[in-house]
């Protein structure tokens, strides 16, 4: 069979062969009896259709027959196969399809699946809803118990992609039914035989009450965390109801057209009638707050409209779930379910409290107690996130200090659970979704980046997307420098986290002799400080380590670890995001500091293959941007920039940055960029660059280095020419060099350039500059164009705007004339 399957997929089946196959199948499924042949053929048909490149259309008779089987066959396998086959084909155009046996009964689950997949119209879906609701309301249907249970999932699907198909009546009815199932499901276990008989004989066994997950007998209403030998239909519906409850509450409240004022008016009326009815009870104070009266007693909730009543019952259900989750489940799968239920319960509480603020006062003690129970248990970390959301949404209402929550979410979780990929995803999503709120209300957030980056350092590919979104919010002027260093040190953090985990698992004395040097270093007290700094939880204790070189040495063997390599690959992207953000918030002083960091760190990077090269590329790009934005930076930082450019070794080892530093010096060291630029400064810069150019073009490269890249030489020549064009007595020196260059190169090969083409381009450039410099005034305007040439603003230029004005006037006068 396996061979056949592969063969069928491998080739596109011929049309004639396929038609024959259709005919064969039709014959097989025409009758009432179905053998293995029919089933096998349908399975093969499904395989062929799903493997096809394009969607096919079945012959009408086959389609009709399959539809008939889907709708009315008592054998489930035929329903399933027909549904699967029909889902892979195009629906018949124009015709009205009947998905159920008769209009009074709703379609079976497989027919409904087909209907939903064929994107029926709103009216069709609406009538489906009506059918389903009628089924829910009326007498117990004759079908098996599960025929009713698919109703809610189908309704939930319709709610998701066509919420308008549900009418007001549907919504009201469903609200009522959900209340019944959630709150009033049977508390007895299901009977053994569902004979449909109306009375049980005296000998029949009493089923007994439902139980809790820890084995005790249940003392309150039925929930998903209750167990029994078998279940009654309404207990099943309890499960399905809770499963869709949150979505229902969210969607039906936002989509509902009942306006807020009508709601308040209802509640006012209700409170009045309640206060009257309570006149015979013990005198409860009728305080000013209207709403607290309504939520004070649960028995009076019968008077609430269906939506509010459901909200109240949902509230009670969640409280019960929270209480039940404290019990120790006997099975591990149930413990996991308890966690999932807690998440859901807190989310629902959050949702209903957003709808009705008064419920916050009732909900908060419950959530707070839950927090107290779970906060010290890291295995419940994922449950604590919705609790944090609750605190964020409603903490202000009850004036509660939420600091402990943030200590957990921004502190302990990233520090200890960075390798839990699900927690990482959910925590980062929580941050993303609440970014505005967090920036306003949680001041510790912007200082938490050393901790948050642990998620990134551990599993960069999975979370880099989240950090691209979060990083801008973490860039503040106060922490910008430290943040830059932290980004550059991410691969070091990655190595450290790996070492931390290994250290916990491997024994202290690893006698196998394979001991990793880096692991030893991690455990050694001499270097503890280095690693502790990387593992710090908050910003503010220093920008970076003084002994970075030492750290990189110790981590030398980590550069080939896949996790570290993956991390290093995401740093350039994040740096781009960082720089793009920092230009918007940085003042001149900060930009100066950042330039220094760029220069300094360009040689202080972990030696991962291609890492330094990529970082240099990013640095160069943004150095250019900074200087273009604030040209005066070049004059302010001229000392450091010249120091960098004057070190010939940099032309070889950090070529990218070197070239760009030379370029910005040539471009922006001028009076037009900054009036403080003196002749002395220009001359000193010129001399520095000249010296480097001489060195680079006089001999072979230093041992171990490749030849200097051509653009190093051309950028030096261009920079020198630009500087000379501003201080004309420097021109002869440049011209002399350029003509000497021409002479030397005419000889053929030179020791400092191995490639003929490269040499040719260098020479060409040299010629251009030499010719340009022969006419100093032209050279000045070409090499140092005044601002109005390089940034044209034609519409503002008085000389140029004139033609536009004239043209506008002319056209207006023409119009006036023609009218």
């Amino acid at each position, binding site marked *: 069979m396996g061979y056949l399957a592969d063969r069928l997929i491998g080739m596109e089946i011929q049309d004639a062969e396929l038609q024959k196959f259709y005919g064969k199948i039709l014959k097989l499924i025409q009758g009432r009896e179905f053998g293995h042949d029919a089933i096998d053929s349908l399975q093969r048909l499904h395989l062929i259709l799903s493997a096809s490149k394009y969607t096919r259309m079945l012959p009408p008779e086959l389609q009709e027959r399959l539809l008939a089987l889907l709708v009315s066959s008592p054998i489930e396998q035929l329903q399933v196969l027909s549904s699967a086959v029909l889902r892979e084909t195009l629906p018949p155009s124009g015709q009205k399809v009947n998905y159920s046996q008769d209009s009074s009964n709703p379609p079976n689950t497989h027919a*409904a699946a087909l209907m939903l997949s064929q994107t029926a119209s709103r009216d069709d879906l609406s009538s489906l809803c009506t059918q389903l609701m009628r089924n829910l309301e009326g007498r117990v249907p004759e079908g098996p118990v599960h025929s009713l249970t698919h109703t809610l999932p189908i309704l939930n699907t319709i709610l998701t992609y066509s919420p308008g198909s549900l009418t007001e009546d549907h919504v009201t009815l469903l609200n009522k039914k959900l209340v019944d199932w959630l709150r009033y499901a049977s508390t007895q276990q299901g009977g053994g035989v569902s004979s449909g008989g109306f009375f049980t004989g005296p000998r029949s066994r009493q089923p007994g009450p439902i139980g809790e997950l820890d084995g005790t007998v249940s003392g309150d209403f039925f929930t998903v965390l209750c167990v029994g030998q078998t279940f009654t239909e309404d207990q099943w519906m309890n499960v399905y109801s809770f*499963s869709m409850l949150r979505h229902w509450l969210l969607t039906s409240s936002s989509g509902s057209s009942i306006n807020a004022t009508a709601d308040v008016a209802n509640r006012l009326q209700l409170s009045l009638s309640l206060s009257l009815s309570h006149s015979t009870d013990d005198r409860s104070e009728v305080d000013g707050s209207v709403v607290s009266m309504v939520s004070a007693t649960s028995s009076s909730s019968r008077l609430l409209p269906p939506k509010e009543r459901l909200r109240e019952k949902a509230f009670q259900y969640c409280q019960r779930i929270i209480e039940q989750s404290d019990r120790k489940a006997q099975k591990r799968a149930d413990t996991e379910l308890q966690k*999932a239920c807690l998440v859901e319960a807190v989310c629902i509480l959050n949702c209903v409290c957003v709808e009705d603020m008064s419920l916050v006062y009732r909900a908060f003690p419950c959530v707070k107690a839950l927090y107290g129970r779970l906060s010290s248990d890291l295995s419940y970390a994922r449950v604590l996130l919705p609790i944090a959301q609750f605190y964020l949404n409603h903490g202000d209402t009850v004036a509660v200090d939420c600091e402990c929550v943030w200590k957990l979410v921004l502190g302990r979780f990233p520090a200890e659970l960075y390798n839990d990929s699900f927690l990482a995803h959910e925590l980062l999503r929580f941050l993303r979704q609440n970014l505005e709120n967090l920036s306003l209300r949680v001041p510790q957030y912007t200082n938490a980046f050393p901790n948050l980056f642990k998620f990134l350092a551990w599993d960069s590919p999975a979370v880099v997307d989240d950090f691209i979104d979060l990083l801008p919010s973490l860039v503040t002027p106060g922490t910008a420098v430290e943040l830059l260093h932290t980004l550059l040190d991410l691969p070091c953090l990655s190595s450290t986290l790996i070492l931390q985990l290994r250290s916990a698992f491997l024994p202290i004395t690893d006698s196998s002799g394979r001991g990793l040097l880096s692991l030893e270093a991690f455990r050694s007290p001499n270097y503890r400080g280095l690693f502790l700094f990387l593992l710090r939880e908050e910003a503010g204790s220093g920008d970076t380590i003084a002994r970075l070189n030492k750290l990189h040495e110790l981590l030398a063997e980590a550069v080939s670890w896949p996790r570290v390599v993956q991390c290093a690959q995401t740093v350039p992207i994040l740096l781009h995001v960082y720089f793009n953000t920092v230009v918007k918030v940085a003042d001149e002083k900060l930009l100066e500091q950042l330039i220094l960091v760029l220069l300094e760190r360009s040689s202080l990077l972990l030696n991962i293959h291609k890492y330094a090269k990529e970082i240099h590329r990013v640095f160069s790009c943004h150095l250019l941007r900074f200087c273009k934005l604030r040209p005066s930076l070049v004059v302010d930082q001229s000392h450091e920039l010249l120091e960098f450019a004057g070190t010939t070794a940099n032309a070889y080892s950090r070529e990218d940055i070197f070239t760009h530093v030379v370029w910005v010096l040539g471009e922006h060291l001028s009076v037009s960029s900054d009036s403080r630029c003196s002749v002395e400064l220009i001359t000193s810069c010129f001399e520095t660059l000249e010296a480097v150019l001489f060195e680079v073009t006089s001999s072979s490269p230093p041992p171990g280095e490749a030849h200097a890249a051509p653009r190093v030489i051309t950028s030096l020549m261009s920079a020198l020419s630009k500087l000379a064009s501003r201080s004309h007595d420097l021109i002869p020196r440049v011209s002399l060099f350029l003509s000497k260059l021409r002479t030397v190169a005419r000889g053929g090969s030179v020791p400092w350039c191995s490639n003929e083409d490269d040499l040719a381009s260098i020479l060409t450039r040299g010629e251009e500059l030499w010719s340009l410099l022969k006419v100093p005034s032209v050279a000045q305007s070409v090499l140092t164009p005044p601002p109005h040439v390089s940034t044209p603003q034609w519409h503002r230029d008085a000389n140029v705007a004139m033609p536009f004005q004239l043209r506008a006037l002319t056209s207006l006068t023409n119009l006036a004339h023609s009218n």
Partner: protein
Amino acid sequence: MVYCFLIHTVCPGGSRLLYWRVFCPDHSSPDGQLSAEQRAHLQKEELLAVARQVRSAVSLSRQASGRVLMEVAVGEEGVALQEADGGVLRLRAGEPFRGERSALWLAVQSLGFTLLCEPHENLLLAEGTLRGLVRRCLDDLRLLGPGSEVLLKSDRIDVLLSRLLPHGQLLFLNHRFAQSLEKGVAAYTSK
């Protein structure tokens, strides 16, 4: 609710869709602009895009953890499941679906099982559901053996989904409810 459930290959050779079930049609283009055939084709392309992204995530995750894949024979599905890599991927709005989605995945040997959910879905529940589905798929379909039956016995997966993930609805099932549903599935598959 869950948007779709996929079974696909995650070996370096390429990602092939072996099984897919979409629960909620994605109305990424208003009706009338695309024909039914075009819409079906588009949907298939989107699912392939998801499978490719998951394969990439699986391969990176396996590379990073440095774990060596051991050959697991038929009959040792429990072991395979314990050793399985799992994770969750964020699919940004527009890549390829209109809204943001989360792709929960479980990779067993060269097979990937993916649940595509709305971002605000209860991921703890989805994770538990996915594990349960994978366990049953491995047990019933002998996916780890040669001559994989997943392609021809997809109706069994359909029935499994119709009970444990009906129309994409995640269910809060304690062990008793789950047992009861699984009995029903076992009854179907034994026929």
